[in-house]
């Protein structure tokens, strides 16, 4: 009995051992054999982090090789969701360490919810050194946090180049959704949003590198497994000139307006300034909500590049276009005169000349120099709106000029066909009278008027405006050079250009010329003022001031157009800016000259 009882106990024990062994082995088989590969992968993911090494963005230089945009190191905070142990501990802890809302952090994490949990999410860019020190000191207590040093875009001249260079900012959700165009981008990456940064994004960006590192359970890097070096972006060398730009920008700084200056021999853009502006550095370090709202809701529209996007009636500067066309067609010649009595009756309306007493009998030369309206009312009627439209279009007016910036506006140069299409109405000749002096349905951008100026300066030839001269790799190899592209090359009737150029030289240099006050010492500058009515007959706003110019008069190396919104008079508001640009370009030092003159006295 006793032995029997005992041996039955041992049988039970053996059974228990066998069952235990079976259960454990089945489980081990399941984990190690059936799911072994999956578990191995998980353990690899656990320990290996792929860290992006952001490629330094290409540097942007002016034509003299001065840096207009470069990159500097910045400290950025990242959060790796996988490494977070206690969500609120980490989020609250981080919010306390860096000046950042809890909601802002959560929002950033939500935005990256489509990425794998081992993907670090950028929480804050370009944090100051004291925050870096604080985060470093507390990192152990907030698992998941890491600080990475990354290149950050830097714009040393801030607002002065904001509209040309543009800015980079973090890629948006909408951009990421466009998988075809942005397949190489992931949340937190920077992308050119505006200006050259956007037009030349693919050249500037470079190729990001990768570093595979082994990390421990709290995300500390234990060792580096391998590194793929980033390929830095290519540099842009611009036709833009730093000093000229700063001169124009300084003159515009307190006003609204734009300046565009071209090299008439190549179409290279020397100046492209627009005010008001904004500080692109704000965008590059992750713009705050308040800063963004301040810029976006500003009634002065600082985000509009007036030089290529602002449409304005060209006023009297438009007369150059009419003079060229009428002379070329033989409608008028050098000796053709019209009598100006201070007004021009057409239909049941009297169109006034700006000079109340009238200019008397005026030829084309005097009409340009003194900007006689009545002369051009007559010329305009003889030409007709369609011939004005077609000629202007050829030169680059009323259409996009093709400058290498995004979102250029084409403005408006009316025609009978346009009126029919737009309003389903015939064109009235009375409207041509207004158009003849650059009023009515004419809306042109400063860059387009610079094209007109360039056409005269270039003796009947102008080029597509081009900001970037060449793209150069970090090794100094020229990847691409932008050769001048001819926009219009017309064989005008002999003498036509001489007449118009004489007129434009007279505007600045002859007694009675509308821009006589902007005469430049030692350099002969030619130009044409414009004062365009702004607003409607009911709402009177200050007139827009225009000045188109080129210098030197005989062999121009710069052709420009200046606009000052509500600047009242072209002669007093716009022409001095052109004078400043010319002086800067030709190193005319006004102050010193004046001092010498005093000595001689």
């Amino acid at each position, binding site marked *: *009995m*006793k032995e029997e*009882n*005992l041996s039955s*106990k*041992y049988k039970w*024990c*053996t059974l*228990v*051992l066998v069952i*235990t*062994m079976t*259960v*454990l*082995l089945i*489980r*081990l*088989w399941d*984990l*190690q*054999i059936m*799911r*072994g*590969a*999956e*578990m*191995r992968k*998980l*353990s*690899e993911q*656990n*320990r290996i982090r792929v860290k992006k090494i952001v490629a330094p963005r290409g540097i942007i230089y002016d034509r003299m090789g001065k840096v207009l945009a470069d990159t500097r190191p910045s400290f950025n905070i990242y959060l790796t969701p996988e490494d*977070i*142990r*206690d*969500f609120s501990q980490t989020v609250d802890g981080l919010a306390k360490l860096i000046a950042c809302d809890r909601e802002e952090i959560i929002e950033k994490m939500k935005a990256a919810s489509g990425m794998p949990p081992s993907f670090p999410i950028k929480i804050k860019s370009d944090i100051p050194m004291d925050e870096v020190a604080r985060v470093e000191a507390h990192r152990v207590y907030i698992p998941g946090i890491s600080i990475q040093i990354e290149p950050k875009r830097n714009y040393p001249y801030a607002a002065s180049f904001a509209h040309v260079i543009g800015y980079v900012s973090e890629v948006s959700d909408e951009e990421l959704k466009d998988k075809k165009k942005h397949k190489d981008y992931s949340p937190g990456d920077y992308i050119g949003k505006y200006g050259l940064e956007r037009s030349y994004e693919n050249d500037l960006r470079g190729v990001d590198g990768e570093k595979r590192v*082994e*990390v*421990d*359970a*709290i995300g500390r890097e*234990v060792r580096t497994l391998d590194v793929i070096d980033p390929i830095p972006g290519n540099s842009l060398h611009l036709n833009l000139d730093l000093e000229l730009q700063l001169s124009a920008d300084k003159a515009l700084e307190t006003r609204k307006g734009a300046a565009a200056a071209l090299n008439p021999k190549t179409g290279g853009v020397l100046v492209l300034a627009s005010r008001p502006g904004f500080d692109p550095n704000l965008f590059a370090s992750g713009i705050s909500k308040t800063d963004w709202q301040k810029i976006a809701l500003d009634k002065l529209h600082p985000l509009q590049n007036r030089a290529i996007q602002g449409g304005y009636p060209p006023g009297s500067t438009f007369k150059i276009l009419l003079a060229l066309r009428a002379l070329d067609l033989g409608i008028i010649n050098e000796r053709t005169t019209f009598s100006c009595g201070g007004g021009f009756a057409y239909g049941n309306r009297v169109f006034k000349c700006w000079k109340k007493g009238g200019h008397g009998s005026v030829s084309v030369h005097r009409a340009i120099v003194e900007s006689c309206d009545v002369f051009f009312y007559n010329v305009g009627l003889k030409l007709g709106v369609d011939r004005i439209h077609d000629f202007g279009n050829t030169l680059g007016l009323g259409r996009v000029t093709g400058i290498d910036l995004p979102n250029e506006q084409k403005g408006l140069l009316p025609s009978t066909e346009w009126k029919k299409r737009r309003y389903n109405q015939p064109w009235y000749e009375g409207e041509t009278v207004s158009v003849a002096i650059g009023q009515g349905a004419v809306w042109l951008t400063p860059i387009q008027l610079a094209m007109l100026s360039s056409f005269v300066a270039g003796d009947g030839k102008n080029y597509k405006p081009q900001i970037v001269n060449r793209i150069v790799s970090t090794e100094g190899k020229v990847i691409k050079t932008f050769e001048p592209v001819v926009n219009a090359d017309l064989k005008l009737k002999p003498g036509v250009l001489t007449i118009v150029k004489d007129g434009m030289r007279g505007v600045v240099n002859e007694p009675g010329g509308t821009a006589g006050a902007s005469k430049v010492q030692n350099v002969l500058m030619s130009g044409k003022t414009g004062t365009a009515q702004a607003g409607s007959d009911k709402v009177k706003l200050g007139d827009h001031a225009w000045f188109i110019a080129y210098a030197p008069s005989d062999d121009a190396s710069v052709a420009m157009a200046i606009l000052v919104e509500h600047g009242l008079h072209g002669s007093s508001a716009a022409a001095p800016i052109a004078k400043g640009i010319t002086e800067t370009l030709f190193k005319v030092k006004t102050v010193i000259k004046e001092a010498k003159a005093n000595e001689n006295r």
Partner: protein
Amino acid sequence: MRIDKRRYYHLDWYLIINGLLIFGIGLLNLVSATSSFSSGSYNFMIKQLIAFAMGLVLIVIVMYYDYRVIANHSRWIYLGGIFLVVLVLIIGLAAGGAKRWISIFGFSIQPSELMKPILVIFLANMLYEKKRQNTPLSLKDIAKPLLWTLIPFVLIVKQPDLGTGIVIILVCFAILWYIGLKKSTYAVLFGVGAISPFIAWHYLMKPYQKMRVLSFINIDADPAGFGYHAKQAIIAVGSGRFLGKGFMAGTQHKLQFIPEHHTDFIFTVFSEEWGFIGSVVLFALFISFINRCLKIAMNAHDELGAIIAFGIASIIYVQFTINVMMAIHLAPVVGIPLPFISYGGSSLLSMLVSVGLLLNISTRRYMF
């Protein structure tokens, strides 16, 4: 000290070699498990070897006295054990939120570990008369042993050291079963066993213990919190695959993904580095060792020896099974060391004292 030479011939070399193999594997594994610690694995290995040497001395002492003599004094040994456990609650050293250690002569020992073999001897001494009479135990008969088990159980769980508490209770039941229970006793015990989880859940368990159970049921409920350890543990074991990553090549423990990987979770280190093959060998060694303990119990000279040997077999079985099951997510996370393998002097000493008792019983099996 006079040692009967005859006993050498009867030494259980199977048990000794089997035990040494497990300990050797454990020592090797410990080197890898502690290699990522700042103090280095050498330090841990030396401490473990010192404990082993002290354990060998204890084996000799334990073997010198007849286990029946030891059993005769079991009440004093038991009281001594209880005294130490109480001492822990008063002057214990805290680590990781629990007071489990006391410092004696510069060594920190964990009395709850030593309580396991002590309780086995104590219960065996109390009950072997019943076993000899071969009368199944009634409810009244089991009241006394249960009470004497519950006293250290409560004290140990208060530290808190739930793992050791569970081992003590399970071992007590195993011994009662081994002696034999009346059918009515079985019925009552099963009834109590059925409702006790609810009572434990509502009145006894601490929030973190409940979380461990919950995250055992659903590992993904809280992958960053309590489920984290369990998840990282099965990743470690699973990633070992068939042949393992190789000695010192485990990444899960080395990069600190697994907490307590040199003590309670040490099986994950072994399984990650030695794979399925290594684990099967280790399991086989344990099963063989436990089986050998049972053999000693079966062939013991008297019921007292049989009960002690069986009790020790059940300690090793319970610890081995729960520890491995916890590592492969078949049991909730609970602090129970893997015998001979986990780092810890007290655990090793307790195991070696047990081995001493087993050898004591096996060498005296032919005595009359």
